[in-house]
């Protein structure tokens, strides 16, 4: 495997290999040495978490990082094509990690260069490293990926993270609750795909009694800018807030996840409960990205 562009390119075996390596690296990071290797972080859009998580992963394995963050003041502003930028970055580095607002940008870059390319988000399309770290977090929190009940809550229409997660879990016999306002529900083409894959799901507009029934409560932010009508936003904005009180009925093994940053959708009183898992999830991202970098650089046995 040369590049990591889309979850669609990964079968269950490959996913399990990444999960096993992330687990092994968390226990023993010294098994991989990426010293003298250079990662180019090519970020056409601002991102703190994904970029710093990648930088941390690379540096903790002994590697070096060079970065382009935003296009202001760069050759891109002067009119350089994406292909040319990528070809130059490939001469400076051993692996490219790219985030770009246009869908398919990472795939295109992977066709232009001879070194491995990792997609760190291409518009509303794919964010495979987030999907893999989510799977790793679910595996760590529950001990298995098989047969879990999950509620995905919030903006399910535009949320790339929840789309990828639904596909990534599909081979593991999950049961989903999709909880969102009607205007932000899971897109029909994704529901069709899940039906074809025989994945069980229920669509809901309120949390109701779901909290007591699930193993994972995966919460995403509802962005005000998604609503054409301010009034409609005001109506739904507080309908999906997770509080410590709401979690009283939760199963003992239940965990709350969130790709972060959160605004107010998870109340801070949840942080000190045994259900909070979102900060562990962020840490797991470093181990998963170490596994991805090591694998694509040919250093994983």
């Amino acid at each position, binding site marked *: 495997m040369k590049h990591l562009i889309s979850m669609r390119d990964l079968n269950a075996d490959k996913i399990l290999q990444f999960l096993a390596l992330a687990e092994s690296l968390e226990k023993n990071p010294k098994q991989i040495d990426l010293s003298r290797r250079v990662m180019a972080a090519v970020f056409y859009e601002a991102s703190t978490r994904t970029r710093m998580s990648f930088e941390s992963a690379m540096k903790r394995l002994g590697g070096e990082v060079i970065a382009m963050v935003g296009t202001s003041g760069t050759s891109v502003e002067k009119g350089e094509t*994406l*292909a040319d930028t990528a070809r130059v970055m490939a001469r400076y580095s051993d692996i490219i990690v790219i985030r770009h607002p246009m869908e398919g940008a990472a795939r295109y870059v992977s066709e232009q260069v001879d070194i491995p390319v990792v997609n760190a988000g*291409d518009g509303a399309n794919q964010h495979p490293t987030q999907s893999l770290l989510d799977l790793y977090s679910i595996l760590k929190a529950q001990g298995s990926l098989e047969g879990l009940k999950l509620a995905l809550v919030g903006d399910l229409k535009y949320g790339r993270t929840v789309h990828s997660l639904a596909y990534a879990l599909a081979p593991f016999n999950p049961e989903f609750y999709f909880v969102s306002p009607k205007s932000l529900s899971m897109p029909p083409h994704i529901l069709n795909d899940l039906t074809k894959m025989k994945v069980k799901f229920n669509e809901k507009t309120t949390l109701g009694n779901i909290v007591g029934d699930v193993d994972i409560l995966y919460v995403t932010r509802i962005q005000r800018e998604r609503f054409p009508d301010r009034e409609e936003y005001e109506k739904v904005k507080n309908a999906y807030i997770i509080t410590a009180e709401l979690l009283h009925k939760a199963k003992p093994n239940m965990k709350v996840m969130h790709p972060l940053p959160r605004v107010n959708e998870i109340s801070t009183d949840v942080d000190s409960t045994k259900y909070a898992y979102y900060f562990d999830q962020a840490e797991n991202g470093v181990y998963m990205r170490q596994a991805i970098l090591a694998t694509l650089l040919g250093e994983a046995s």
Partner: protein
Amino acid sequence: MKMMKVDAIRNGTVIDHIPAGRVQRVIGILKPRATDIVMMGMNFPSKAMKKKDMIKIEGRELTQIEVNSIALIAPEAKVSIIRDTKVFQKSVVEIPEIIEDLVSCPNPRCISNAEPMKTRFKLVDKSGPNLACQYCERVYSAHEMTHI
């Protein structure tokens, strides 16, 4: 209804059963050379299609790849290679598994609409036909697409 006669060709290609009204789009894709002699027929009566269009090209045998390139807009077209006024070979068009640089992606957020690059689609459903963009991964009906 009395059939109209169109000159037969000696050597070349006949494309029959083009849906009525699409002959000019087919010509646009085939891009005849300046030396090709081309006859275009529109709205011929047809039992199966009610009305159909037709193209005859004298002096040029289209390759299967060229023929397949029209499959998205004329999926039922029948192609005959003519040698010495006789039908030498008959074939139907078939949409290729990979369609490269023939149609553009309808997704305005797709990188293929922003960079100077070739488009690439994979055939995911012959009946639509529906094509998946190999860059943005969206699936579209061929009828929503414009030819490059």
